[in-house]
């Protein structure tokens, strides 16, 4: 007896539709749903399928229109006052029901805090596989979704597939793909589904929630981080990184030598013994790239490193390696950004 096969409720996909979970709670900070719609569009072009957004909540017209403008062919909508809160158990049940009814081929979920908890549970209910934090998604010659994801601590990448079970599911971190420009003339089909009345009783309740004040942003949560090393030159020059961070709405991190030299607070240490960060964009100014530091930034997205020494380890780890004086480049970048952001 194979217990796994018995508990699984996998289905054969009826449609070739690609679903994107509409995660709008942090809409202005996180545009991951739009980024996924864009990638889903690329995949759909290969499989000849429709791109669908699935959204739950209350007063959703704004999001429904945004999803269509950003590439959704269909939007499945469940609107109800009780869905105003991002309630995990209800959202899971709704997704399970819709997926079992419409049987999509692929479900993509943004790797937000919510998505990272929601997707594994939905996958489990549907008896299917899930790949976390995909950095690449493609369709192979058999029409199967090839999910590229970090493996073994991000030192390696793995190509993963879900060969038999459906839907094929993946989570993707915000900032991995780029959204397509909106097109408000674009037409899409809106499928409204009534809120089911027989949902199981909630065992987990949100008693209270409040948006965290921006001032309290933690470097671990920041989308943009500016890391500075000894190459900045002096304590005073290091301070310029904070101005750059303000312009970019980011946070400043420091290497161990910087903290030892008292140029920065120990709180800012980014390293194995300090903070581990995963910004979508990391600027690295005058950082040599000791392993203790690079281990803590391995989840960063786009890495832009500035160093006088083109052979510094940090420069090899970067997407963009700028050979220049870190301090001078920082000053020039601040000046140019001020010009451009003014509007």
């Amino acid at each position, binding site marked *: 007896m194979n217990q796994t096969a018995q508990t699984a409720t996998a289905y054969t996909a009826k449609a070739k539709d690609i679903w994107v979970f509409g995660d709008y709670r942090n809409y202005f900070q996180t545009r991951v749903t739009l980024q996924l719609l864009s990638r889903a569009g690329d995949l759909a072009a290969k499989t000849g399928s429709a791109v669908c957004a699935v959204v739950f909540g209350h007063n959703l017209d704004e999001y429904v229109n945004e999803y269509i403008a950003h590439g959704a062919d269909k939007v499945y909508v469940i609107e109800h006052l009780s869905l105003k809160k*991002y309630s995990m158990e209800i959202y899971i049940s709704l997704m399970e029901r819709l997926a079992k009814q419409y049987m999509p081929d692929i479900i993509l979920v943004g790797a937000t805090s919510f998505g990272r908890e929601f997707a594994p549970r939905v*996958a489990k209910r549907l008896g299917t596989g899930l790949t976390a934090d995909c950095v690449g998604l493609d369709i192979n010659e058999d029409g199967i979704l090839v999910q590229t994801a970090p493996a073994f601590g991000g030192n390696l990448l793995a190509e993963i597939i879900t060969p*038999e079970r459906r839907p094929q599911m993946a989570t993707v971190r915000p*900032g991995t793909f780029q959204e397509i420009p909106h097109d408000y003339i674009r037409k899409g089909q809106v499928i409204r589904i009534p809120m089911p009345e027989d949902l199981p009783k909630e065992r987990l309740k949100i008693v209270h929630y409040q948006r965290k004040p921006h001032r309290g942003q933690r470097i671990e949560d920041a989308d943009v981080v500016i890391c500075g090393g000894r190459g900045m030159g002096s304590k005073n020059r290091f301070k310029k990184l904070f101005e750059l961070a303000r312009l970019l709405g980011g946070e400043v991190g420091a290497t161990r030598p910087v903290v030892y030299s008292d140029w920065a607070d120990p709180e800012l240490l980014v390293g194995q013994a300090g903070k581990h960060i995963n910004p979508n964009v990391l600027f690295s100014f005058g950082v040599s790239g000791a392993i203790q530091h690079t281990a803590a930034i391995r989840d960063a997205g786009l890495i832009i490193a500035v160093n006088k020494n083109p052979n510094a380890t940090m420069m090899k*780890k970067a997407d963009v390696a700028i050979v*220049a004086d870190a301090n001078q480049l920082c000053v020039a970048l601040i000046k140019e950004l001020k010009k451009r952001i003014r509007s």
Partner: protein
Amino acid sequence: MLNLIVCIKQVPMVSELNWDPRTGTLKRDLAEGMMNPACHHALEAALRLKDLHGGHITAITMGPPMAEEVLREALAIGADRCILLTDRRMAGADTFMTSFILARAIEKECPDFNIVLCGCHTSDSETAQVGPQLAEELKIPGAAYVEWLELKENVLRMKRLSDNFLETLEMDLPGLVTVTTSQYQPRYVPLAGIQDAYDKYDITTLDADDLKLKITGIKDSPTRILKVYSPDSKKKNIEMKGPAKIIVEELLEKFGRKIGGEIQKDLKAYGQDQ
């Protein structure tokens, strides 16, 4: 009595992590093992609950026989009982299968649990999926990324940061939490405790037959790894040099849209078409 289960994973120490760039395989046998940091914090959270309310802690892990080390450590810190799930047939299990096996072991060995505590993610694979999937397998409510918890009657009150929202949650028990590393700094291991952990306690070792499972970790996992490769070659590694002002313009021309997307600002130069 409060019956707590802590799921623990042994992970390689980062500095020891070694892989063969030619074959793309991890030299796992060379990597020294340690208790996954988030699991360590989950154990600490369990110990604090036990300190306050009394109770019994079962630590459970699935892995190669050497994973027994992290169970000994858990015993030394204060766990009361340990279960090691080890079987070649469990190797290669993805999160779907891992949570399936863990759930069957929990149902068999400690069905009367009140709370299952897991680390929010592991430092080696970082999927953060096993905890939530284990809650599904056990058909209990779950909350991930919990930073603080307090037990009141049969309700667990929790705080967490979720997508920039500070949430206070209440969960009916039995339930499952995954704990972050932001609070619950693990206590030091007393030396005497380590000695005791090797002398006194027995560890329950179970294989697939003990759990009456006919499984193959790799074959029964819904996901399949096609290939593994080193990503360093994938970094774009564009080099820019020249006067600072020119570099900045070039940088913003190439990556302004990406950076602007992150900060929700248009970084196009005035009058310039993108």
